């Protein structure tokens, strides 16, 4: 159901909407005052009630993640914000950092208090210079007001926040790679366990959360956890509140739209996105960043034995509300909730080619199945495009991708394999046409 909200985006079109005065005029820094008057346990309970599913891609419940942090420990605790935003098709966190940075700063304060940390690091990819600038400016404003430092808001809970920069590596968005990078090392993912809540940044208990996950937390303390959760039509799926939806590719109005959870792909593409460019037909859509499977509009939802799916069974996947568990149950993934739309004028084989080149380039190389598998698939798809591949090699793509799944240190492996499996399954005919005709294609282009 399409229901626009403005919890994060109220400042997006205001002049100087990113300043502290604009933020406070809109009710900012009320939530943190309320949170600091509660106990740590009460803060976590409130966040649990809000049913915020992690906005970084994995969709883990935010309050539950916070509750994994040790109650007592002699080591310091850290909150680390994942602002690496590198998943192809994803451009939502940047809007928060550039246009509403105080929401993230206030969220960090509440998060730190909730997990028992006194410092937060915001790990921003280096390319986002304006984001870093706006965040530092917001931190300085908050320090000057006495909201950060030894005695925030006159209380005794010391807090500070720092911006840290990456240096260009998609894999640093993976949380343990990000921690290594924060520590000044190569950004290679770590074996888990131990999990960050036990052994995270600098060997200390750490919570890693996405920018948007944390930026929405102040709203929870403003409107109340329960009320926030119930904004969503996916409340029965424990998927609460409102979030940012992105849409890019072949739509008339690409962009970031804030809505209550429960929005469908059809609403995102046609109502918010304005429909397909040139009024063409929709060929395919990737629901939430390139690591998700690609879908065709004529796929039908069928999840028997789960009454929650009754309203959706028999309908197109375009009419299934975008939620973490709704999409997981149909063999897909919600990811970052930023859809990539392709019209029927484009060649899906070239889209597959574009993506495997990305994954081969970004694999950190620690695990053989990922490093070699991505390279191998890329070589085969290169041959497909050049018209020199065989049908057996198309089957090989499926086998190689299947062998990556579950056999790697980090989830990059699945993120690379899933889209390849989906392209081979849904565009088998187009791939075979390439093979059979020695590289001829209907359109041979990606742009309209």
């Amino acid at each position, binding site marked *: 159901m399409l229901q626009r909200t403005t919890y994060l985006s109220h400042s997006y079109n205001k002049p100087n909407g990113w300043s502290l005065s604009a933020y406070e005029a809109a009710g900012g820094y009320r939530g943190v005052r309320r949170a600091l008057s509660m106990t740590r346990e009460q803060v976590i309970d409130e966040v649990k009630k809000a049913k915020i599913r992690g906005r970084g891609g994995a969709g883990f419940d935010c309050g539950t993640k916070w509750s994994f942090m040790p109650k007592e420990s002699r080591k310091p605790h850290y909150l680390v914000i994942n602002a690496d935003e*590198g998943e192809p098709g994803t451009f939502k966190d940047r809007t928060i950092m550039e246009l509403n940075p105080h929401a993230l700063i206030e969220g960090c304060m509440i998060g730190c208090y909730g997990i028992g940390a006194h410092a937060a690091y915001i790990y921003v990819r280096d*390319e986002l210079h304006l984001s870093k600038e706006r965040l530092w400016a917001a931190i300085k404003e908050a320090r000057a007001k006495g909201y950060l430092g030894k005695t925030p808001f006159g209380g005794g809970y010391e807090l500070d926040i720092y911006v*840290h920069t*990456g240096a260009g590596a998609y894999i640093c968005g993976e949380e343990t790679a990000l921690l290594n*990078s924060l520590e*000044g090392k190569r950004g290679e993912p770590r074996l888990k366990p131990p999990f960050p809540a036990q052994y995270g940044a600098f060997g200390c208990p750490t919570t890693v959360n996405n920018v948007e996950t944390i930026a929405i937390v102040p709203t929870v303390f403003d409107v109340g956890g329960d009320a926030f959760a119930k904004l969503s039509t996916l409340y029965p799926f424990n998927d609460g509140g409102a979030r940012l939806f992105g849409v890019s*590719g072949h739509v008339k109005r690409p962009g970031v739209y804030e809505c209550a959870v429960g929005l469908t792909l059809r609403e995102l593409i046609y109502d918010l996105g304005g429909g397909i460019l040139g009024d063409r037909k929709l060929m395919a859509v990737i629901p939430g960043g390139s690591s998700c499977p690609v879908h065709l509009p004529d796929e039908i939802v069928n999840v028997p034995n789960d009454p929650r799916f009754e309203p959706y069974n028999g309908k197109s996947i375009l009419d299934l509300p975008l939620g973490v568990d709704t999409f997981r149950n149909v063999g897909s993934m919600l990811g970052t909730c930023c859809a990539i739309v392709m019209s029927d004028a484009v060649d899906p084989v*070239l*889209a597959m080619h574009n993506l495997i080149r990305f994954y081969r380039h970004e694999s950190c190389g620690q695990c053989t199945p990922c490093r070699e598998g991505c390279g191998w698939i890329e070589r085969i798809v290169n041959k497909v495009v050049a018209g020199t591949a065989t049908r057996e090699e198309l089957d090989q793509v499926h086998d190689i991708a299947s062998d990556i799944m579950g056999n790697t240190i980090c989830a990059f492996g699945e993120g690379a394999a899933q889209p390849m499996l989906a392209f081979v399954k849904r565009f088998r005919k187009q791939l075979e046409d390439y093979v059979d005709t020695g590289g001829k294609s209907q359109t041979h282009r990606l*742009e309209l």
Partner: protein
Amino acid sequence: MAFALSAERERELEDILARYPNKMAACIPVLHLCQEQNQNWVSPDVIDFVARKLDLSAAHVKGVVTFYTLFNQKPVGKHQVWVCRTLSCALRGSDRILAHCEKKLGCHAGETSKDGKVTLRTAECLASCGTAPMMQVDKQYYENLTIEEVDRILDRLTRS
């Protein structure tokens, strides 16, 4: 000549160190700081400097430098241009934008124009997919690009 930071950047380095529980964590920010002062590349001198400043081995610093694409291990042009070519941008014509840049600058992606003004590169998704096609010039994003806009930007760079 051995590498050294300006007085202002030395102060910034102290600022950076104060943010972390140990010196190693300052490695990436300090490398950025040095690279900026060193005409945008990390020379062997820079690596030695950072290693000394942060009590790290040169091997550690080199390992970091080689992992991240934004540390240049060779000299680069006065300006750097990155054209994003990942899927959302490709769907909006990034191939055309890149081809135009190559033609206009007379060099391929990965190379520097003959006058030494511009190093042209491709980038993977820069979180601007809703305003594709796009490119980054030094620290600035240019979005919703047209060929005419690219011409204006590149002309400005080659005149600078």
